């Protein structure tokens, strides 16, 4: 068990673009960084059987997520020479067009930032116990299924 309390990754509602630029701006003092890679997941208004997705309502098994995310974080830092890594995932309702996932990696050279960002996104989708309920325009819903590569 890590001594350190795992970092929280969850925020209530969508990720605000302003939050993203604030996060980017905070790295201007870290002048050993040469490359940032950012992934943003945005809610699509898919049409399924004639019904349009208007929002996704996210729930999570929070304690298990944070423990798992801490393990992923340690493995990624052991594998790539990163300066920093930030992860933010929405809980609750995120409307179509809004952002529900923000993964941000930084390193001296581009390869580590780009490769680790992609790997973290894949691992989040495959390994974190988070569920998205797709809410349709007629108020019906279905549980989202991720497309795991």
């Amino acid at each position: 068990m890590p001594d350190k309390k795992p970092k929280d990754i969850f925020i209530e509602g969508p990720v605000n673009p302003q939050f993203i630029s604030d996060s980017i701006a905070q790295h201007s003092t870290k002048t050993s960084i040469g490359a940032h890679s950012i992934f943003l997941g945005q809610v699509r208004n898919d049409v399924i059987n004639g019904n349009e997705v208007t929002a996704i309502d996210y729930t999570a098994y929070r304690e298990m997520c944070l423990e798992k995310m801490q393990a992923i974080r340690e493995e990624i830092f052991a594998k790539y020479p990163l300066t920093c890594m930030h992860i933010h995932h929405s809980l609750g309702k995120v409307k179509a067009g809004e952002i529900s996932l923000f993964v941000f990696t930084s390193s001296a050279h581009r390869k580590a930032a780009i490769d680790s960002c992609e790997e973290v996104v894949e691992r989040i989708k495959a390994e974190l116990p988070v569920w998205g309920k797709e809410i349709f325009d007629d108020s019906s819903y279905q549980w989202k299924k991720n497309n795991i590569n």
Partner: protein
Amino acid sequence: MKVSVLTFGEVADIVNASSFDLKDVEDTDTLKQLLEDKFPRLKETRYAVAVDKKIVNQNVTLEDASIVALLPPFSGG
């Protein structure tokens, strides 16, 4: 001996509760059988079982205060 059960996503819909306690359930296979008897739709649903936040792929003996989570396929991100 009492265990806590947490359910999520479609499983929570089927059992119509997100957490409840069960008494005297020896192991995870017994727990699954119990719930699938009570909620037949569970049998047609894919879900993983985690005991104390670790996914288990085989039958695991439960202890007092074990936390068992029933996890349908993840869809975060």
